[in-house]
């Protein structure tokens, strides 16, 4: 009797199993070959002095060397400085812009979304070409013309340690908020209007509504953008590579660029692998901390 009253449980049929494996086969092979194997391989390489013909096992030397390498710490510091200067500012700017876009009609909203998203669509190399020209050290560089118009003097923006990092940061401020604006706007449009109604009955001002309704409601989006933003920022390579090459005097050498140089300029694969795994651990720890502190009351 019991077997009749029990709801019929869908069991895996043999046929379904087979098709299941068949459908993931290519994805699985690709994953095993191009992600899983390289990760394991990275760990092995990091314990070796890598040579194309027969590597030698050297234990944790690559890690020890890295931790004693002042350039590694400088690169790490540069990365942290870059992250701290760009990620929070970009998040703040995106949130403000999204809130400003909100009162307009759908068409105007799409118009602004399109404009702000445009730099994301352009290739990083193309943009770097333009920005190199904006930061041109000669009098006719665009930024220098602007500075002169305000009574300042021309700078060798990318060529001096003091301004090179700022130049990369400025570039980020003006070109990397397209994605977050759209995510914030989607979050804003999803806020239930009853919240505002209740607040208005209580006589809340615009700023109070912002602080007590909008900011908390956007918290999941903020956390998502914060975590992905910091992770992305820690892996920054392209801009530093194309704009400054890490110079002057390693003032803009980020961890990503350092790893690239170790691997593909000096062909010190073991060192590069060790550093990349240290980077992975740092990123994992940062993500965990962020989830712990910011994500306490966020639901998914």
């Amino acid at each position, binding site marked *: 009797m019991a077997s009749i009253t029990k709801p019929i449980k869908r069991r*895996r049929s043999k046929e*379904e*199993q087979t*098709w*299941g494996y068949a*459908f*993931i086969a290519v*994805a699985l092979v*690709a*994953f095993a*070959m*191009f*992600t*899983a194997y390289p*990760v394991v*391989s*990275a760990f092995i390489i990091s314990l070796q002095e890598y040579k194309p013909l027969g590597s030698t096992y050297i234990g944790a030397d690559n890690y020890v060397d890295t931790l004693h390498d002042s350039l590694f710490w400088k690169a790490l510091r540069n990365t942290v400085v870059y992250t701290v200067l760009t990620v929070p500012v970009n998040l703040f700017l995106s949130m403000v812009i999204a809130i400003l876009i*909100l*009162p*307009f009609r759908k068409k105007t909203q*799409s118009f602004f*979304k*399109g404009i702000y*998203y*445009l*730099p994301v*669509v*352009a*290739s*990083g190399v*193309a*943009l770097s*070409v*333009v920005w190199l*020209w904006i930061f041109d050290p000669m009098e006719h560089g*665009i930024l220098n*013309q602007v500075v002169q118009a305000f009574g300042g003097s021309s700078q060798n923006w990318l060529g001096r340690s003091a301004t090179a990092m700022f130049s990369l940061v400025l570039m980020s401020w*003006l*070109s990397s*908020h397209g994605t977050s604006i759209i*995510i914030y706007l*989607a*979050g*804003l449009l*999803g806020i239930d*209007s009853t919240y505002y109604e209740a607040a*208005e009955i209580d006589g809340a001002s*615009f700023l109070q509504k912002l602080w007590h309704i909008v900011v908390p409601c956007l918290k*999941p*989006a903020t956390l*998502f953008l914060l975590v992905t933003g910091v*992770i992305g920022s820690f892996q920054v390579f392209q801009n530093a590579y194309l704009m400054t090459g890490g110079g002057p005097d390693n003032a803009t050498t980020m*961890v990503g660029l350092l790893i690239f140089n170790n*691997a593909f300029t000096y062909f010190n694969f073991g060192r590069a692998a060790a550093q*990349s*795994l240290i*980077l992975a651990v740092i*990123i*994992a720890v940062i*993500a965990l901390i962020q989830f712990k502190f910011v994500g306490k009351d966020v639901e998914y």
Partner: protein
Amino acid sequence: MALYSNHTGKPHKRHIRNTIIFIVLMLFALATIFPIYFMFITSLGDPVEAGAVDYSIWPKQFSLESYKFFFDYSKYSYRWILNSLIVATAVTVSNVIFASMAGFAFSKLRFKGRGILFGILLVSMMIPYQVTQVPLYILIVNTFELQNTYSALIMPSIVTVYNIFLAKQFMSGIPTEILECAKIEGCSQPQIYMKIILPLSKTVLAVMAILTFMDSWNTFFWPLLVTNSMEMQTIQVGLKNFRFANTTYISPMMAGAAISALPMFILFFSLQKYFLEGVTVGAVKG
């Protein structure tokens, strides 16, 4: 009732407020797209050396000489664009096919280890690409000896975890009842996938295709690593050569940059909806 007061009864007040906001947004938007605007304006100038260039914010002339200069500069200029097209198209097609298949299996089929396998895929998205780049380079270039081949450019991104995740999320929303019905009617799993899942997933597949194409077109790092002959480079890598070789020729440089960005701009303006939709998939619920 919303964040912004409607100023009921005082439409002019609302009007003034919106105008001010519009101006602020416009100013910031102009700063954002200025580099792109400048790129196009300058690319229309004459291909003269830097000192002789007439820098203006407004186009004084329209000449395509700099574009001609760019294509004449290297006999591989066309080839770079063709390479980018071949690679981006191949990567896009294979991702749409294989990610949708895997997404279907992970969302609708029951098989042993499904949960664990998907979990591993998800966790792997957290691994920085720097970790895999060295072993991947060794594998492709030293072991398989595929340097300067399309295989080397295409293979590592044949199907990405992100796209599998995207497909799975979307397909989980398709009611299982439909699939059960089809099964009772005698559909096999491949038929269910072809006749029900794929047609119902058109939107997410379009989003996936566009984002994948954009990523692949704009990618710089991997092609830089695995190509060292001019004829196998993609436009992004080619552009870099060009930049260092010809820094004094601003207009042709900008023409090259414009050429590398143009296909994406055209795609963006014609398919804006899918681009912008793609951003929010997986990021925000509802």
